[in-house]
């Protein structure tokens, strides 16, 4: 058997890796619905509350793909990893896909598709408002992700628009922290990671400016 070439992995590795968690979820749900006993859920790895678990799982993968998206720019500065640049767009789109599924399952299976309940939830609960705002900021980024849209907007304007991703990072970090009961470490770890990724963008720029002045 021939091993997949490095070129193939560089091109499709990101898609395969990011599709895997979703495929696993769909596979488990398939078994659960086929079996017909909702309480088989735990044995299938969907916990005793499959819907709640699914919402959390999709949200977590949205945050993870956001972290990966934001990690590309600092990583590609390493020469050997420059090829990672091509992963930024697919990762960003996977982030949007997981966030959209997260929102869809919450809206469809938790609120049973009621818009009035959604409005009530968004207005009443800060963490839902933040999550909703995060998704709304992702929306224009996903819509302008095509080459054609970059051309139409002009690189400079496109880049300025896509800085919204930093806002998304701040919103979802707080969204996750406010979601959990009591003090739990996990959302703070993601907040620290996202904060670090944002800082890496501020620091080298400031250093660059200083270096320029020193000339």
């Amino acid at each position, binding site marked *: 058997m021939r091993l997949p070439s490095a070129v193939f992995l560089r091109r499709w590795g990101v898609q395969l890796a990011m599709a895997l968690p979703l495929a696993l979820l769909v596979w488990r749900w398939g078994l659960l619905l086929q079996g017909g006993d909702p309480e088989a859920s735990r044995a299938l790895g969907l916990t005793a509350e499959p819907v709640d678990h699914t919402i959390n799982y999709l949200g977590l993968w949205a945050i993870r793909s956001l972290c990966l998206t934001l990690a590309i720019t600092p990583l590609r500065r390493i020469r050997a990893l420059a090829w990672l640049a091509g992963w930024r767009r697919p990762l960003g789109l996977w982030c949007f896909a997981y966030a959209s599924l997260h929102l869809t399952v919450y809206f469809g299976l*938790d609120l049973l598709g009621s818009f009035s309940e959604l409005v009530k939830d968004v207005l009443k609960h800060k963490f839902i408002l933040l999550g909703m705002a995060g998704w709304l900021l992702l929306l224009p980024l996903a819509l302008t992700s095509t080459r054609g849209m970059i051309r139409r907007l002009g690189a400079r304007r496109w880049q300025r628009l896509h800085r919204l991703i930093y806002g998304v990072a701040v919103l979802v970090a707080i969204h996750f922290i406010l979601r959990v009961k*009591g003090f739990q470490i996990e959302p703070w770890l993601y907040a620290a990671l996202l904060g670090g990724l944002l800082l890496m963008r501020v620091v080298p720029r400031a250093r660059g400016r200083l270096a320029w002045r020193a000339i």
Partner: protein
Amino acid sequence: MLIRHTPPDHPAEREVTPEALYASRRTVLAGMIAAGLVPSAALAAETGSPVGRGGALSSHRTRSLDESLTSLDSVTHYNNFYEFGLGKEDPARNAGGLRTRPWSVTIDGLVAKPRTIDIDKLIALFPLEERVYRHRCVEAWSMVIPWVGFPLAKLLALVEPLGSAKYVAFETLNDPRQMPGQRTGALESWPYVEGLRLDEAMHPLALLTLGLYGKVLPNQNGAPVRLVLPWKYGFKSIKSITRIRLVDSMPTTSWNRESPHEYGFYANVNPEVDHPRWSQAHERRIGDFLPRKTLPYNGYGEEVAGLYRGMDLRRWF
């Protein structure tokens, strides 16, 4: 894995065993031991407390519910018990190290006859009842569980509360060696504490619980003795109790101290009053895919609403 769904009207084994035979079980066992059929340890397990082999607890069902029971597997593998981890399946994994013998419960404070009662004496103190109750977590999920225990009121009457006693304070075991969660900052301070107004504690629905599904409580469900207050959010039903104190002022409760605007002292199930971060109007019943409406007082309003007559339930949430 075997999951047994027993309909509420299905006779339990204990109901089809003739009472006379049941009452003479020790003699029967002794006879079997004499004949060398059973190791003598079986008799030791049978004396002193109604805990039988395999942790079976003999009880009579005094309260049924026309809703299907949540499976034993879900009841014992979906728990909030931060002493054993934050994940719902953590307590089932981590509670194995909890030693429930020897164990005693101290009842003191404003009472005429303070007592410390050994757990095996406690189990044998009053006839055990099996009651099927709804269980509603503040996180908006719910179960239906057949608990075994006796009314808390009976125990409180035993120690004779003084006229000055207005509240009851409860305390969980404090032992970070056995409860790894107590070595973390998951809650601001340990042990877990809870409280009730004395009239709430005396209410016949308040169950001092020693078992579920006909057996002694599994560790992850609050062994060896816990409270079950079906009209309140689950966090009020404190687990692994070591101390009950009668006091004259409203006691501190763990979640209220943690986040007073999110978790009130009363914490009665109320679909009208949302948790600040999520709605309480609906709940996800374990074993259902779609949510259902939450009932005021978790469906026990007829029995308990009188306790809160005239109170502003938005203020006293």
